[in-house]
């Protein structure tokens, strides 16, 4: 039984020390409101869920040092970094995935339907993915290894941002939050493949190709409003033999269990850069940060208080850092595409089956046009994301295209999430249907930075 600090005194003549500047009337109303709220809990038989909510907040409301990480040592001498070669430039406009992409897409789609969608509701409540899901995804899909070159024990032959987009899209059709949980470690391995030097790759990549997957996260976002990844508040100051990192990273997936972070911080010259930070580093703490959505991704806040890293921890800066931001936004656009498609696929049978005024509500233009607009904006979002990803893997400039995909994901991802709930009406607002979760999850695509990468 949870004790609520309810002042059991009459409303009149009551004195409270805080807040100091309220007038008596406002004070009385505030207390009434509090009492009424508590009574409503009993009347609506809500006490149990609230207790569970408090328990959750306690369990996930921790503040702890980072997970104790394994000892990362260079498994072998590696002088030169291994990179995946750029994809070729096809001569023709083509929207057909390769046979290999179609296979991966199908496997990811089946995994999403069978393992993500059914587990999503509970994971949303629990604020963590179901036990063993990551391992199953690694075993069945190899989400990490397809982006790691063969000479580093991966399965990748060439850079394929498009394949990554297709996988993210397919997984997010199952559940966006779980897709983020699954793809978060791959963001770190992809960053290492793209920008790591020989020593960084030899030290940090081997655990990503092991059977038992390693927890890792790309931490870019910060809590301040109007966050700009090119004007970071987290600072990297010069220290003896390396850097000292201080700042706060927000909404980091799997933060409590990650053993390795890639952290974005501002260099002494004002530029932005990525640093490899091991979770056991002194001065690094993790706080739970449950949010509106993406809850299965076990979001956490990463607090860096004078965390010292060696000079060799600097992973990327300049144009490479900018590419990281762009590729991450593309991943979010791909995730939004997948979940928006899930909304469309869900509302169609619903509006066709739901009767009002003696006929299916989809016989009405206002309902039907809302469905049409979901379809139209989804198509634009998908194609814009594909174009940006294709340009990225072909080695072309893609800043413009990634920005436009991001803009569409932010605007229409949100709109589609909202339309999904609206089309189901009251049914859309309750957890009996997944659309309320998609509404919450889709809002993330417009504000998240980092966390996932294609």
């Amino acid at each position, binding site marked *: 039984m949870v004790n609520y600090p309810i002042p059991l005194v009459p409303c009149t003549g009551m004195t409270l020390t805080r807040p100091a500047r309220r007038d008596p009337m406002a004070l009385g109303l505030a207390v009434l409101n509090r009492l009424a709220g508590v009574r409503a809990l009993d009347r609506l038989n809500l006490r149990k869920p609230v207790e569970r909510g408090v328990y959750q907040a306690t369990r996930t409301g921790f503040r702890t040092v980072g997970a104790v990480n394994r000892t990362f040592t260079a498994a072998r001498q590696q002088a030169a970094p291994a990179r995946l070669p750029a*994809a070729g430039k096809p001569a023709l406009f083509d*929207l057909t995935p390769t046979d290999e*992409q179609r296979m991966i897409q199908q496997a990811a789609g089946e995994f999403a339907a069978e393992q993500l969608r059914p587990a999503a509701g509970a994971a949303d409540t629990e604020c963590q993915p179901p036990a063993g899901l990551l391992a199953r995804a690694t075993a069945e899909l190899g989400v990490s290894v397809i982006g790691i070159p063969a000479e580093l024990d991966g399965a990748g032959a060439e850079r394929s941002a498009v394949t990554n987009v297709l996988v993210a899209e397919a997984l997010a059709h199952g559940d966006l939050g779980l897709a983020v949980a699954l793809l978060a470690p791959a963001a770190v391995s992809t960053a290492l493949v793209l920008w790591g030097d020989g020593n960084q790759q030899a030290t940090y990549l081997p655990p990503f190709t092991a059977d038992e997957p390693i927890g890792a996260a790309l931490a870019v976002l910060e809590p301040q409003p109007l966050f700009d990844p090119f004007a970071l508040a987290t600072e990297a100051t010069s220290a003896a033999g390396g850097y000292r990192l201080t700042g706060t990273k927000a909404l980091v997936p799997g933060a409590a269990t990650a053993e390795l972070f890639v952290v974005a911080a501002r260099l002494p010259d004002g530029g932005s850069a990525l640093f490899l930070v091991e979770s056991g580093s002194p001065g690094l703490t993790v706080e739970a940060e449950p949010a509106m959505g993406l809850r299965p991704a076990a979001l956490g806040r990463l607090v860096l208080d004078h965390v010292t890293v060696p000079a060799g921890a600097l992973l990327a800066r300049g144009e490479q850092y900018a590419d990281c931001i762009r590729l991450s936004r593309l991943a979010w656009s791909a995730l939004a595409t997948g979940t928006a498609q899930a909304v469309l696929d869900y509302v169609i049978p619903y509006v066709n089956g739901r009767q009002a005024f003696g006929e299916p509500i989809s016989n009405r233009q206002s309902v039907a046009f809302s469905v049409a607009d979901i379809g139209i904006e989804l198509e*634009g979002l998908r*194609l814009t994301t594909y174009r940006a990803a294709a340009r990225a893997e072909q080695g*072309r400039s893609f800043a413009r295209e990634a920005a436009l995909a991001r803009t*569409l994901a932010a605007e229409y991802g949100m709109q589609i999430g909202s339309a999904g709930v609206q089309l189901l009406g009251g049914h859309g607002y309750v957890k009996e249907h997944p659309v309320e979760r998609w509404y919450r999850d889709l809002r993330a695509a417009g504000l998240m930075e980092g966390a996932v990468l294609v």
Partner: protein
Amino acid sequence: MTGINLEVPRKFRPLIKQAHDVAEQVLRANSRKYDLAEHEYPTELDMLAALVDGLNDGGSGGAGASGVRRSHGGDEGNRNGSNLSTVLSILEVAWGDVALVLSMPRQGLGNAAIASVATDDQLRRFAGKWAAMAITEPGCGSDSAAIRTTAVRDGDCYVLNGEKIYVTAGQRADAVVVWATLDRAKGRAAIKSFVVEKGTPGMVVERVERKLGIRASDTATIRFTDCRVPAENLLGNPDIDADRGFTGAMQTFDNTRPLVAAMALGVARAALDETRTLLARAGVEIDYDRPALVQPAAAATFLQLEADWEAAYLTTLEAAWLADNNRPNSLQASMAKAKAGRSATNITLRCVQLAGATGYAERELLEKWARDAKILDIFEGTQQIQQLIVARRLLGKTSAELK
């Protein structure tokens, strides 16, 4: 080398470059002139039309409206053909001036209709003719099944009676593709299209409209009174087939809607290009990396407009690409038209606002593009008709269920 790729193929680049040069040197140069002189014949276009004919005969695919004819070769893998090249070149010329594009001899939507459904024999007979499209009537717009113009078989002719309005290039074109019903009692299936050549007795252009925009393009009202048209001018199948009847006419739209979407994209890009320059002059540069919300409101607005443009552009290319590959594209064609039509209107109107007085005054062309753009969300199927088509397709509904 295969794989997902949404770039313009290299082989179309010379065509696009030519189209762009024409747009810049000829169309843009005459843009304001014929906006002010509504109903005056833009003689500069005659020379241009010959050039476009030349582009069409070139090896790399079509440039004009007739490029929408679907070839029926075997399956040779991915194809980038004349539907795609036509969409791309129309986009470029519409960037110059969409009203003048609509007045371009031999590039009418009627030509696209002929190219879409004509037999090889008809294609030969109407080669070189500039054909307008006449569907709308005073009592029917989007509801083309309510067409009242009648066609009655009499010997080796059909006799046409009725009135058509809003016929783009109806006064200047060499011929008009007229939609008429063989039997009003039989609904859509009885609607057929007929090529009526200019000068046919009984066909009279009654007036031309004064309009919000696309003033360089004449919009005519044409009356048909006992107008006798050779039976072989009926496009497609003359039988009233309840199952297929309307599809012939509708198939035209699958091919022409991406073209109109391309026109909308051209006008919208003209406005975006101009606005980008004006904003830069005012000290506002668009930054694709920094979040829109930390940039000036004008830059954030611009990003949103450009994103809508990109979505419309790629959806349009998709619709054309599907047509090139002989795959069904009704859904994508309507999606493209809907997205391009509404985006172009929004983009051009907002660009006027971003540029303020400069955008609103007739010294620059922004205000004209905002007026021109609106028609592109209306003709070849309004925004609402496109939504209806998309909705029916997605929901699996008939036109009787979702009206």
